[in-house]
């Protein structure tokens, strides 16, 4: 064996990974080759010197921390094994509709978002339109009520009668108030107010009183009768 071939085996020589024949050849060679002998002696010396670096024991902290991590991991693992059943309850059959690939999941999510935004936009504009119609309707009702009140306050009897008819056609909430009707009645009573000397008017009034079905008119005529 040449020097180069011998030197290639030095690392095996140090670790003892050589068979007996090769080891003997190396020993034979270094007896006659001072260069190889010197190199092997130096390598062996430092190899042996490495023994001075003792093996140390780590602190108890290492063990404590390891078991804490392991316990935590086991707890998380147990929690995860329970979770799938819960998940099945929460999304159930719908899970089969969810695509496996994240790209598809993202596409579907984006599509649903767009649909949601568009739906929200149209629904909102519909609501706005509904609001405008309701406002218009209210204004019409208010106008009808003002017309009815205005007719009730007219001097002409036929116009006031028209006002009563108009009022009866209005919806419950827009109907003319009782105060307006009583004011109309005041006007009517004053217009037909009988003089004490007018016995005909008086008798007609009493007759009318007996024929009235409306309690309001009945009360009003009763008051007239007293005065």
């Amino acid at each position, binding site marked *: 064996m040449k020097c180069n071939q011998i030197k290639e085996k030095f690392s095996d020589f140090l670790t003892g990974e050589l068979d007996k024949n090769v080891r003997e050849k190396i020993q034979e060679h270094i007896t006659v080759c001072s260069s190889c002998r010197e190199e092997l002696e130096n390598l062996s010396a*430092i190899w042996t010197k490495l023994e001075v670096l003792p093996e*140390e024991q780590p602190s108890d902290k290492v063990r404590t921390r390891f078991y804490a991590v392991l316990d935590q991991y086991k707890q998380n693992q147990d929690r995860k094994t329970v979770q799938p059943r819960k998940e099945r309850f929460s999304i159930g059959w719908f899970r089969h509709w969810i695509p496996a690939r994240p790209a598809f999941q993202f596409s579907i999510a984006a599509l649903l978002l767009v649909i949601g935004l568009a739906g929200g936009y149209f629904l909102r504009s519909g609501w706005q339109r509904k609001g405008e119609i309701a406002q218009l309707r209210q204004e019409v009702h208010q106008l009808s009520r003002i017309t009815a009140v205005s007719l009730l306050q007219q001097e002409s009897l036929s116009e006031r009668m028209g006002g009563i008819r108009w009022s009866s056609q209005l919806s419950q909430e827009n109907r003319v108030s009782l105060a307006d009707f009583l004011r109309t009645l005041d006007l009517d009573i004053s217009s037909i107010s009988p003089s004490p000397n007018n016995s005909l008017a008086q008798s007609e009034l009493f007759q009318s009183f007996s024929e009235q079905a409306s309690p309001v008119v009945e009360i009003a005529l009763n008051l007239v009768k007293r005065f």
Partner: protein
Amino acid sequence: MDKPNDNELMEQVSAGKVEKLAILFEKHHVRLYNFFLRLTGRRNISEDLVQEVFIRILKYRSTYQARSKFLVWLYSIARNTHVDHLRKRKNEVPLDKQWYEMESTEPSPAEKAEKSQEVIWLGHALGKLPLKKREALILSRYQGFKYKEIAELFGCQIGTVKVLVHRAIKELGKVYFELSGGTAL
């Protein structure tokens, strides 16, 4: 019934029996700690790295393949953990300037002083070696790795590992000789 070996235990951990990792921890954490200690020269960092290795084992347990040897897999994680640590702390003081002082075992005061000095010189010399040579030397000298296993761990030929170890010892000897003022060896 025979006790399960490391590979079988790791297969069980991989399959979900994570409590089995405690057996592997008890068996390997001291040697792993010393691997890091010789690599870094710092006790606290070595303890943190041991911790990190076992956290990574839990994290990547499903990637363990039954045909690979557990020890090789363990030290491949250890090497990556150490490299990540170096990347994070590359601005720190170089290793050869922060070597720890080890306690010697019951020698006389003179021997103690001499041995402590040897430990410091060796620590500094180790710290001056390039990382791959340092790893190869520590694995073969202290961790009991065969060249074949180191080659598997490094992903290279056995011959390359032999050359690495050979050169590592030569360089270490040279630095040690310089540090000791040419008196030691």
